[in-house]
Structures are given as structure tokens and as C-alpha cells.
């Protein structure tokens, strides 16, 4: 590459030592295709931005949080009531988590419906599905940390579900709970998973995911490719990145507003010797599974209903992961109506069950 005159002495000094010119070349090379589905390209970056917010606010929360059954609830109470802007940091952490799961779902379903997972991007899809699993793991483990009543019962139910896995169920449940019951041992375990294990795995997988996106470039949907004609593009730096940043700023403003007007609640402290409260609900992104478990009868073909449910969701997740291998038509670059409609059916199922979860009477 030609030495660029506009760069100053510091840039040149750094370039000779760490190769800034190579990075600049990569950044300039990246182009974003422009077509009628370009809008969906924004959701991956948005999810990454929200994850960065989670890391930043999560680190701040660590300074006050105490991971034990005796102190967790009180430390969050202190954070919300006494620490300056404690309510803001915790509320942003809670809201950005929800928003991140939402943009992740939008990103995943847009990728699914546009057939982006076809060769050579199978591993990008696999890492993306794994990242969704990690995000839900973050949600599940983080939910328990304030040690309130809702979190306690949600964790009891969630960990009990692992007990329904055939053969290794009760072992897995003990491993997850750190004992036979949900106790302070479960809290410290979830804490370790939430602040160390999941962030490490996520960092590694996000690295792989981004590397692959960079390597293969942005995918053009097959329907657009088949349309033929010259494809218009936009440079990623700075044109697309600046548009990205407008979205991020809007998200940040939205988060601040949500945190200010609807701050995260704390509820009552967990007590193993009170009944589960009426109207108990999990986080919205687990709602479709929760509601399905309510509708399953006690026994299906001689098997406990919850075992059937858990196996069903496990197989569903596996199916989602393996879509690039199963969908041969899209792999050949042909339109695949079957997988398109499977994607639509999945979205409709999740929406309907979630809707019922929020509207159906608790005793019906």
C-alpha cells in the first residue's frame, strides 16, 4: 500500500510496529451490499452494541453486589436505594439484557428467513445459535442474582426442568444447583457462571462470529442474487458504521428513558418457606416454553408431560442449529419454501404462546 500523506508521525510510528496500514486496508475493503433487505444488516451490530453495554454495566454492578443468600438481596437493595445512580446502572443492565435478546431474535430470524446460513456461512450460523444459547444462559443465571421471590421460583422451575432430561437429569440438576435444592450454593454457582464462564465463552464465540463475517463479507440474500443486475454497495467505514451509530445512540436514549420511567424492580426477598406467588412468570423470552409446559397434560403416552416438553424443546434447538445441514435446496442456491415456512411457523408459535402467557388466566 502507498504511504498516505495525511497520516502523522505517531500513526507512522505505530504502523511500523503493529501494522496499522493492514487494519486500515481491511476497514476500507469492507462493503455493505444495498438492496431491499439491507435493513436487517443493522441488527447484528445492534446486538453487539447492547452486549458491550451489558459488559460495562455488569462490571459496575460487581462493585456493590455480594453473591450470598444472606447478602445478595440486601446488597441490591442498597445499590438501588443508597448508591448514587445505582438504580440507573441496574435498570440499564436489566433493560439492555431484554433489548439484546430481542435484537438477537430479530437478527437470527432475519438470517433464517433470508437463507444466509447457506455455504460457506454454516459455521457463522452455528456460532450464532450457540451465542443465542449463551444469551439465554446469561438471562437465566442473572435473573437469580437479586435473590428475590420471583427469581427463586423461576430458578427452582428452570433447574427442575433439567431434571427431566433422561438418564443424566438428576445429576445435571444437582450440578446446576450445587446441591439438591435451590440454595445459596446455587446463587454462588450462578454468579460464577454469569460473571466469568459465560462472558469468556461469549467473547470467544463473538470473536469467531465476527471473524467469519469479515472473512465472507456480508451475505446477499439468494432472492436478490437471483434477481441479477449490478449490486450497489456502501463502504462499511464510514458510511454504514455512521448509520449503525445512529441506531446505537437511539437505543441508548431508549434505554435511558426505560430505566428512568420503568426502573428494574426488586420485589420481596426469596424465602423457601412461602408459596409460589400467584401470577408468577419467567422472563418474556422463556414465556413460550413456560406456557407450553402449562398446556402439556400430566402424562403423554406413558411419559411425564414435562419430559416430553423438555425433549421437544431440546430437539427443536438441535433442529435450529442443524438447519444449514438439513436445508439442501438453499445450499444449492435454489429457493426453499419449506424452510422459509418453518421459520415463519416458529415465529408464529413463539408469538402466540407468549401472547397467551401474558393474557391467559393463571387458573385456567
Amino acid at each position: 500500500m502507498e504511504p498516505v500523506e495525511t497520516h502523522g508521525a505517531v500513526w507512522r510510528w505505530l504502523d511500523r510496529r503493529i501494522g496499522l496500514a493492514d487494519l486500515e486496508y481491511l476497514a476500507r475493503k469492507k462493503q455493505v451490499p444495498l438492496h431491499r433487505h439491507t435493513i436487517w444488516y443493522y441488527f447484528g451490530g445492534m446486538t453487539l452494541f447492547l452486549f458491550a453495554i451489558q459488559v460495562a454495566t455488569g462490571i459496575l454492578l460487581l462493585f456493590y453486589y455480594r453473591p450470598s443468600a444472606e447478602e445478595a438481596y440486601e446488597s441490591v437493595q442498597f445499590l438501588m436505594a443508597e448508591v448514587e445512580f445505582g438504580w440507573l446502572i441496574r435498570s440499564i443492565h436489566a433493560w439492555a439484557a431484554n433489548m439484546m435478546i430481542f435484537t438477537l431474535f430479530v437478527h437470527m430470524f432475519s438470517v433464517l428467513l433470508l437463507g444466509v446460513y447457506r455455504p460457506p456461512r454454516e459455521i457463522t450460523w452455528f456460532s450464532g445459535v450457540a451465542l443465542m444459547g449463551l444469551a439465554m444462559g446469561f438471562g437465566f443465571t442473572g435473573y437469580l442474582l437479586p435473590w428475590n421471590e420471583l427469581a427463586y421460583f423461576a430458578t427452582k422451575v428452570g433447574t427442575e426442568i433439567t431434571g427431566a432430561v433422561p438418564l443424566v437429569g438428576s445429576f445435571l440438576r444437582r450440578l446446576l444447583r450445587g446441591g439438591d435444592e435451590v440454595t445459596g450454593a446455587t446463587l454462588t454457582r450462578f454468579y460464577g457462571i454469569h460473571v466469568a464462564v459465560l462472558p469468556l465463552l461469549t467473547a470467544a464465540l463473538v470473536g469467531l462470529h465476527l471473524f467469519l463475517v469479515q472473512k465472507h463479507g456480508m451475505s446477499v440474500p439468494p432472492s436478490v442474487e437471483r434477481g441479477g443486475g449490478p449490486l450497489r454497495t456502501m463502504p462499511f467505514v464510514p458510511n454504514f458504521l455512521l448509520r449503525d451509530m445512529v441506531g446505537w445512540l437511539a437505543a441508548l436514549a431508549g434505554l435511558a428513558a426505560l430505566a428512568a420511567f420503568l426502573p428494574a424492580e426488586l420485589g420481596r426477598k426469596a424465602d423457601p418457606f412461602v408459596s409460589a406467588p400467584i401470577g408468577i412468570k419467567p422472563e418474556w423470552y422463556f414465556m413460550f416454553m413456560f406456557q407450553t409446559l402449562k398446556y402439556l397434560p400430566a402424562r403423554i403416552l406413558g411419559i411425564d408431560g414435562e419430559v416430553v416438553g423438555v425433549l421437544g424443546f431440546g430437539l427443536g434447538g438441535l433442529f435450529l442449529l442443524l438447519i444449514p445441514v438439513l436445508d439442501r435446496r438453499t445450499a444449492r442456491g435454489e429457493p426453499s419454501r419449506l424452510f422459509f415456512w418453518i421459520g415463519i411457523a416458529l415465529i408464529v408459535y413463539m408469538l402466540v404462546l407468549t401472547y397467551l402467557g401474558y393474557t391467559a388466566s393463571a387458573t385456567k
Partner: protein
Amino acid sequence: MAYAIDDPSRRRFVNWFLGTSAGAFLLAVLYPVSRYLVPPPSGESAAGTVTLAIKPEDVKPNTGQIFKFGSRPGILVRTAAGELRAFSAVCTHLNCTVQYRPDFGQIWCACHNGHFDLNGKNVEGPPPRPLEAFAVNARGNQIVVSKGA
């Protein structure tokens, strides 16, 4: 041959050594870590009988309340007819803690809408099994609940 290292069988031997050492090393690390992650067995709650801190006359007909049975919750119910009954309060579906609903005259689980009758039998919703029943004895102004009804 000038260099012994070019000898294929010798190279294979060295590689095998290296491979098994790496495997053994991994095993030596993973075994203690996996054992570490499994929590030690906690003594099963030995409670077979508990005396409640509630007086029989304080339990009104058609009400229920949670009590501590060892490390797990139990539920004490006085039926509309005035009889005292006690069950494990751990729902047989997914482990939530049940409650007495005077409006249905049944034991109910809020988590997934499971219903049990006053014999602990699962009568509606997803619970697959009845609640474990305990024996209740009202001795003077004490209530004693014991396992193995």
C-alpha cells in the same frame, strides 16, 4: 542413516509418547476439576417428625399454611369440615411451592396451574403425581406432623 530422527518407527514412538502424555495430562487436570464441580452430598433432611409452632385452634377451617418440614416446605390444611391434613408442599410437577386456595377448596400451584384435592391427589393440570401425605396429630395445643402417613 545420519539422523536417527528420520527413522519412521522411532518418530512414531516419540509421537505416541507425546500424545499419551498430553492425554494423561489432560485427564489429570479434568478429573479433579469435574469432581470439584459435583457438590458433596448434603445430609438428607433427617426430619421425620416436626412439632409446629402453631396452635390447632389458630388454624381456621378452609385455610392452609406453609411450615418447615426439615429443609423442605410442607403445607398444613384445615378442611371446611374441620379436619387437619398435611402434605409436602413441593409440587410434583416442577418443584414450586404450592398454596391452599379457599376459593377452590383445593391445593394449587401458581407456577403451572396444577390442582390437588385435599387428599393430595393431582386432579388437574400438569402435575404427574400426588403430593406426599404426612400424618397430623393435634396433641393438646400442639400440632405434630410426621412422615409415613
